[in-house]
């Protein structure tokens, strides 16, 4: 009896999460395309990656058949967060270094 109530509830709940995640992905992409400098762009992209993907994982977990697939999805999320953070840091650092170059050039000239 309880299952019949909970299953559609979970289903609709998962829709909310999925839509939210889609919203973050779209916002992140728009941000990456429209923001002026490298740092704000990175900010937009990483938001989309971590939060968007996290909401997606929650949404899909709600309709998953077993715990095994939920575990796999969480692992994927962790991996993407880790590599996203690393890549973001590398890019920001590269951005600062190349900025530093141009500043040095300005001083020299």
């Amino acid at each position: 009896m309880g299952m019949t109530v909970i299953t559609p509830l979970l289903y609709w709940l998962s829709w909310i999460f999925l839509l939210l995640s889609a919203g973050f992905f779209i916002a992140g992409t728009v941000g990456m395309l429209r923001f002026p400098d490298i740092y704000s762009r990175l900010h937009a992209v990483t938001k989309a990656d971590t939060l968007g993907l996290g909401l997606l994982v929650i949404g899909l977990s709600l309709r998953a058949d077993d715990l095994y697939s939920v575990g796999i999805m969480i692992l994927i999320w962790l991996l993407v967060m880790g590599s996203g953070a690393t890549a973001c840091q590398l890019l920001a650092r590269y951005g600062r270094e190349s900025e530093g170059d141009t500043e040095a050039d300005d001083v020299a000239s």
Partner: protein
Amino acid sequence: MSLHEWMLDGTLGLLVLILAVAVLHVRSLYISIVLFIAFGLLLALIWARLGAPDLALAEAAIGAGLTGTLLLAAYGRVSERRRKAEEPLDWHAGPALLLSLIIAVILMRAVWPLPDLDSALVPAVADQMAQSGVGHPVTAVLLSFRAWDTLLELLVLLLAFMAVRQLLPSLPRQPEAWPLLQAWSRLLAPLSVLIGGYLLWRGSADPGGAFQAGALLAAGAILLRLTGLLPALGWHHFWIRALILGGCMVFLAIGVAGYWLGTGFLGYADGWAGPLILLIEVFATLSIATTLTLLVIGETREVRE
């Protein structure tokens, strides 16, 4: 087919086509390369959509990942002047464009009747699966039914490596590895070994196998080498040569042994097929991983003799 399946296929197809046009058309070579990597990842999705998980894995690892790395590495070595002189594809080229369009239309005519036909090899594979020694049909085709193709393909890889090696070494400037990247590679590299091993092991029953595993291992090794956590690898180490050549050698030796023992060239004796295939796959994986690693990062110490 239902509407939302069509929407998925249509979107994927359209995206792939747009990306391919953009790759050829976009002005900057760098953006072209990045778009090409995205193109490869989309292809991997399409392979999965068409029921080919083995190919999706291989495409993501080899087609998009390693090819992308190679392209970026090549881009890094091209001089600034040459980058400036990039010329994209212009659409004013009347005759060539017309020719390609005509060819495409003729080819569409050729593929039109194909979806309704069938292959004689599908039932043949199903018939012989029990004797192949493995449970996954793609692995059975690669290592039993058409093992000769696979052996030659390992030779192709070896040949490409030899060919690259004899060109004068062109070393990219190795930037100092950043601590965060080093830390992350320390975490990722064991993971890639683990997943590679898993793919290899699983390949006998499920999608996966030597090529996918080899590509993953290579990715881990490349990451470690780029962050300076792995010593320089070179052809002058005997064990590197043994690793690279091992795949072909073990494969050939087992093939010849089969002929000697009367089970046919590249045939396996009854009951031995499973273990022998696993043995070949292990050596092939190591060989593929080492070769791909050296293809990407190149040799660091050897000078031309």
